[in-house]
Each structure stands twice: as C-alpha cells, then as structure tokens.
C-alpha cells in the first residue's frame, strides 16, 4: 500500500504536543501524531486512553488546552466542526452519529446540504447525490427512508457514505467495526483500500487488533492520555503491541477449565416476539457457556431480551428445569427465578450514570438488604465492598457517581450488579464490546469463575474469535432464527459466517 507515496516528507496532518483535561481528568498529555497522505494509521490503547478525545479535538468538537494542529501545511486555530469538515476531514464517530427521524439523504448531507441562494435547499441534487453515493458504495437503498427504519449495519454504511460525501482527504474511523461482522467488515475494508488508492489518509481506531494488523501501515499507541509510541506495522507483532498498550505482557489465551456438562437448566421452545425473532428453541446446561453468533441485526439481542422477559412473547415458552421449574413474563420475575441479562448498550440500558456505584450495584437485590422495606446500610456496605474486591473495580468511593468511572469499570459495575443476584443463568450481550484487551481478559476469567460455580452463561458476541474461544457450544442466528448449532471443537470462523449469511437458511434447520 505504501507504494504510492508522493512526497514522503510532506505530512497531511500534524497534531503536536496536544494536552486536554476535563475538569479534573487529564485526558491527553503532550501527545503528537503525524500522518502522511494515502496511508492507514492504527490508533490503539486501553479504554479511556484518550483516542476518541484526540480525534474529537481534530474534529473541532473539543478545543485542546495546549498544542497545535497543522493540517495541509497550515496551522489551524479554533476551527468549528463545520470548518473542519469543509477543510477535508471526516470523522466516523464511535457512537453512531445519525439523526434517526431524518432521511438517509438528509443525514448524509447534514451540515453541508447542497443549497442555492438564501439558504434554500437544492432538494433535487440532494437526492441525486445521495443515490449516486450509495450506488458507488454498492449499498443501494431508498435514500428517502428515515434512518430509524434501517438495520444497524445499514446505518453504519450510511455513516461511511456520509464521510465519503465530504470528499475528505483524511477520514477518521472510531471503532467502525464494533458492530460489523463478516461480509460487512470485508466491505468496509475494501472501501478503505479503494480510498487509500485515491490518496486518502485513514486513522483507524479499534480494539480488535487483528483488524489493525490487517489494514494499518503504522500504529500509534496511547496509554493514560500519553503517547507510548508510533511504529511501522512491520516492526510490530501482536504480543509487542499488547505490551505497549497494557504496559505488561498479557497472556492472550482464552481461559478454559475442564468440566462435565451439567444438568439441563433452561429450555426455550419456539420463542417469538413482536420483533424479528421467530421460533427460537434452545437448551442450556449448568456450568456451560453457550455462544450466540450472527450478523448484526440477526436477532441475537432480541433473543436475549425474550429470554429475560423484557419483550412479551408472541409464541413459545421459556422454563427453568430442575427444582425451581419457573417461567416468567417480565424481568422482575426472571431475576427472581435466577436469570439475568447484562445488556449490550451499557450506557443506555445498563448503567445509572447519575447515581452512585453503591446504588447501581445493589439495585436488583434490595430486598436482600432490607428489613420491612428499610435499607440496612451495613448490609449494603458489605455487598458493595465484596463486589469491589471480587471484580477489582477501581473507584474513588462507593458513593462516586457511575458516570465518572472509566468504561471498563462501568462495565464491571454492571456485571457486579447482576452477579450480586446470585443468578443461575447469566446472559451477556456483547460483554466486551468497546472494552480494551486487558479488561477483556479479566471478563473472560470472570466468566470462567462463574462457570466453576455452576452458573450457566449465554454469551452473545460479534467477535468470532471470542465466541469460538470461550463457548462450549455455539448457536448461529440468521434473520431472526436459529439456523444451526456448532460444537466448540468443530467451530471455525468460516463455517459460522457461512451459516450466518446464508440466504434462506431456514431450510437447513432440521
């Protein structure tokens, strides 16, 4: 890829000695990066290392406290988000940045609508150009549909179309792959390759290191807001990169323990809800990890929500076997029966950001630490203290508001909350999404510990290596149905992707 460099000495972008603090938190300290045209730069680091902050400074969303940005040879001062886009920098944000109720076309050109005099919109060219773009990307869709009607993968592609529409010379992608898998990922990479051929520079942020090795020319590592190093990809191997990120070598092997398959704990038969989910059946055994793989939008989250009683069933039954033999129709009853769900969207479905860690952790088990509906502070303190130790949660105090914790610790708080209910079954929906390597392996270890205590786990994940590495069995979903089951020993990425993407897969189920 590096063959086409026109003038190696010439940087398209230099961010020099950038520092930024948010009231109390030093997010970036004296960080410098330099990018040449037509190259792909990986940007990696643990959660909270400052990657997104650095990119938001580039985008003009934040102003750096100290430091300068030289773009295309010119020093940039106090540019607004709009100026930055006009200057040829596009950013695809970590959180999808689309307005749900507006149409695809309107979203693509938001902020830079084709217009005539007096701020009048040029609606004709808006739609023509949107259609042209989606076609060029090979994602032809009705650009007058509101974005809220698209699947998540389609939305991600709209994001990319939006970046392309800006004819950018530099595109930043902040974890664009977090919700992509399989063919969509390949599609993304081929788009990146063609962009690079046109001389566009890409900054690519990801926690999935294989992707970084697959496309990056150079990798910059941040840690705790400081620059660790920038190296060419050929001078790096996976272990070195992980060590640079985490600060110590990390044993990157999925922890396994040997155990017998336990007794049957849960049976779901022919479960459907008002959503895409249709006729899902599964069995779950004590002490196992049941992986659930599939493309984004294949209905995995819907399956989890159905099992948890969060969405009403339109058909089917879910029952616990064994001595409890319960069934349920809402989360409260599910929790009562010993089944919990750790939702995929931590911030909007899992965490009470404005409340203290203490309140977050004890919420589902209040009845255990109350007498006559009155909270017993001492009992509560014990619970929180124990959770803190068991999961090694880093926090200033139990009364700290959850929003001030780092991402990884927030995830741990959500986990702790559910583990405190002493569940028999835990459903983890994307437990490691957006979580850095270090924290990831801590979560893996924790899952094994739960297994050892006889807890059954359902793990939904879009990261195939993780599903294959951790699960005892893997169910593959496609278009709202379960289309196959793969044993751990037989699982390969290719095999799963084939099942997950096959059209009309329904026929394959026995």
């Amino acid at each position: 890829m590096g063959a086409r460099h026109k003038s190696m000495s010439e940087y398209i972008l230099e961010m020099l000695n950038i520092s930024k603090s948010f009231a109390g938190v030093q997010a970036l300290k004296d960080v410098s990066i330099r990018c040449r045209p037509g190259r792909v730069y990986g940007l990696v680091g643990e959660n909270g290392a400052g990657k997104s902050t650095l990119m938001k400074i580039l985008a003009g969303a934040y102003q750096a406290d100290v430091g300068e940005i030289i773009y295309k040879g010119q020093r940039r001062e106090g540019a607004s988000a709009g100026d930055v886009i006009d200057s040829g920098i596009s950013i695809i944000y970590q959180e999808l940045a689309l307005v749900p109720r507006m149409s695809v076309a309107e979203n693509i050109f938001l902020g830079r609508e084709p217009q005539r005099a007096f701020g009048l919109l040029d609606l004709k060219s808006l739609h023509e150009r949107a259609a042209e773009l989606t076609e060029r990307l090979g994602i032809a869709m009705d650009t007058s549909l509101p974005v809220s009607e698209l699947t998540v993968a389609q939305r991600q592609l709209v994001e990319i179309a939006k970046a392309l529409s800006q004819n950018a010379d530099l595109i930043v992608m902040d974890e664009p792959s977090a919700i992509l898998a399989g063919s969509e990922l390949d599609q993304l990479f081929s788009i990146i390759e063609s962009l690079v051929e046109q001389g566009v520079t890409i900054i690519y942020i990801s926690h999935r290191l294989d992707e970084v090795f697959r496309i990056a020319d150079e990798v910059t590592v941040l840690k705790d807001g400081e620059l660790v190093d920038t190296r060419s990809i050929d001078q790096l191997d996976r272990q070195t990169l992980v060590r640079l990120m985490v600060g110590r070598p990390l044993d990157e092997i999925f922890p396994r323990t040997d155990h017998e398959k336990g007794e049957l704990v849960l049976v779901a038969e022919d479960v459907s809800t008002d959503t895409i989910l249709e006729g899902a059946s599964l069995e779950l055994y004590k002490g196992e990890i049941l992986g659930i793989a599939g493309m984004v939008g294949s209905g995995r989250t819907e399956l989890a929500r159905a099992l948890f009683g969060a969405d009403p069933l339109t058909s089917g039954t879910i029952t616990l076997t064994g001595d409890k033999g319960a069934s349920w129709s809402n989360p409260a009853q599910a929790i009562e029966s010993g089944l919990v769900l750790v939702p995929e969207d931590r911030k909007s479905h899992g965490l009470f950001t404005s409340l203290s860690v203490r309140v977050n952790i004890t919420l589902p088990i209040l009845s255990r630490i109350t007498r006559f509906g009155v909270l017993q502070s001492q009992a509560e303190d014990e619970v929180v203290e124990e959770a803190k130790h068991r999961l090694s949660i880093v926090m200033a105090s139990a009364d700290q508001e959850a929003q001030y914790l780092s991402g990884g610790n927030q995830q741990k708080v959500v986990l702790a909350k559910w583990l405190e209910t002493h569940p028999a079954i835990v459903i983890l929906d994307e437990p490691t999404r957006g979580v850095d390597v270090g924290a990831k392996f801590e979560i893996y270890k924790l899952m094994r510990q739960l297994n050892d205590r006889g807890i059954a786990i359902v793990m939904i994940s879009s990261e195939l290596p993780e599903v294959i590495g951790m699960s005892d069995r893997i169910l593959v979903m496609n278009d709202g149905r379960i289309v196959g089951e793969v044993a751990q020993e037989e699982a390969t990425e290719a095999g799963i992707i084939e099942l997950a993407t096959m059209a009309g897969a329904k026929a394959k189920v026995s």
Partner: protein
Amino acid sequence: MKVSTPLFAGLTDSQRLFLRRYGPIFAVYGFIVVLIIIGATQSERFLTVRNLTNVARQAAFLGIVALGQMLVILTAGIDLSVGSLVKLSILVSAIVMNGEVGNQGAAIAATLGLGLLVGLIHGFLVNEVKIAPFIVTLASLGILRGVSLSISTSPVGSASRPFIMFYVQKIGPIPVIALMFVALLILTALLLRYTVFGKYLYAIGGNVEVAHLSGVPVKLTRYGVYVICSISASITGLLWLSRMGVGDPAIGDGIELQTITAVIIGGTSLFGGRGTVVGTLGGVLLLGITANLLVMLGVNQFIQGLIQGIIIVAAVALYKQEGD
C-alpha cells in the same frame, strides 16, 4: 424502543410509517370536522362568512405564536415566556406609537427589536450558559411579566387610527390579519421544507450531539429559533394593539400554555425532531373552533371548562406519543 400499538397491527411497514407520521394530523382534523358538523347542524350562524372569517382572524392571534413555539419545540426546546412577551410588546408598542401615525414605524421597530433582544437572551442562556429551555423561559415568564407591570398596571399609550383600522381591513371577504397568518404559515412550511435552517431544526431536535458533530451550526440555529419565537410574540403584541387600540397589561396571561397545547395536539413531539406546520394549524383551529362553538351554541357555561379539558386530554392521549 420499538413501539407497537395494536392499532397498527396488520399493516405494512410503509403504511405504519405513514400512520405514525401523519396519524395525529388525521386525528386532529377528524376532530375539527366533527366540530364543524356539530356547529353547522346546531347553529345557523356558525357557517356564515362572517363567523368563519372571524374564526380565521382569531386563529392568527394564537397561530402566529404557535408557529414560533413549534420551531422552538422542534429543536427539543420550549418557550414559556411568550405570553409575558406579548404583554410587554403591547405596552411597548402602545407607548411608542402614542396614537401618532408618524410613530408607527418606530413602534413596530421597537417592538420587533424587543422580540429580537428577548430571543437573543434566551438563545444565550440556552446556548452559552447551557440552562434547560424550560427553566430559562420559566424565569423570563416571571421577569417579563414583572417588567410589564412595572411599566404600567393600567392601560397606557394608544394605537394610531390607521393601525386600529388595520384590524378590520379585508381583501374580499377575508381579513388581512387572517391572510397574514396564512402567509406566515406558508412561509414557515417552506422554511422547514426547503431551507437549510429548517433541516437543522429537525437535526438538532433529533439529536443535538449528532448535529453538532456534523457541522450543523447548533448555536446559531438555536439563536435563530428563539429569536423567531420571540418575534412571533412581538408581532402578536402588535396585532393585539391593533385589536384593542390601547396598550392594556391585562392581556397575555396563559398564551404560552395555549400555544404549547396547540402545537402538541398538532402532533409535534415535545422531545423534538418531529412536527409539521399543517399539524400545528390543526391544533390552533381545534382550540379556536372549540371556543367559538361554545359561544355559538350557548353551551352551559359551567361545563365549558370540562369540555375543553376533555378535548385536550383526548387529543393528546389518542395517539401514543413516541419517546426518545
């Protein structure tokens, strides 16, 4: 997050989408048709040109502010101060005009300038100090009211003769004020549909974060809507002066609640990002026709309040609102 209503069962996706978007509008116009039928059959004077033009002109008073209010609500804001601003505008315009034709221009300029100033202050507090619009405008509801009553608690100033006559002027059978409202309706509809500014309102209401990161000038746009809304209140103050001839501080209480009710009944989401001019017109007409009918039909005064309450609650409860 997915909302499913039994009402929508058995429809295709695009029908569902259509209904979700335009359902409230059909509902509100359905209500209006029912009221018109009641009016036409129960009172021979309801469907007269005289009464209809009367209703149309009255609609302008609520409607113009409601349009401003709708723009603010589209950005997920709210303006509780419009009633007090109408009051203050009436006083300022009456005092400056003081019955003189020669002062008309100055009075209009001063009143619109007042709206501009108040809108800018709202925009500043919302944008720069980052206070919730509800609270900003709740505070200015009190402050503007206090300022008005400090200027005068009794009627002051007066309109010039031509300015008073403006109220009764007609083109054909239609009052000029009603035509002015129609013009503003069309203008607002065009603004929302065909201008960048309009798109930005929806974008900010849909997701302010996304709008900002997409390079939408969020602050500028918000300054714009608060200024437009305040100016719509100033214009209404001027219309009131024309209607009354004198500046009376007795006017202006409760307009904010009426406009918000009209906007919401018209299907605009208080969460922002969704709403139409046609819907707002429907809300304004529904409230206006209800009030007119209560008088026309000589409805027992003691149950008038109850009827109004039932209509408002029924109208907002009929369609399940979409949350965020």
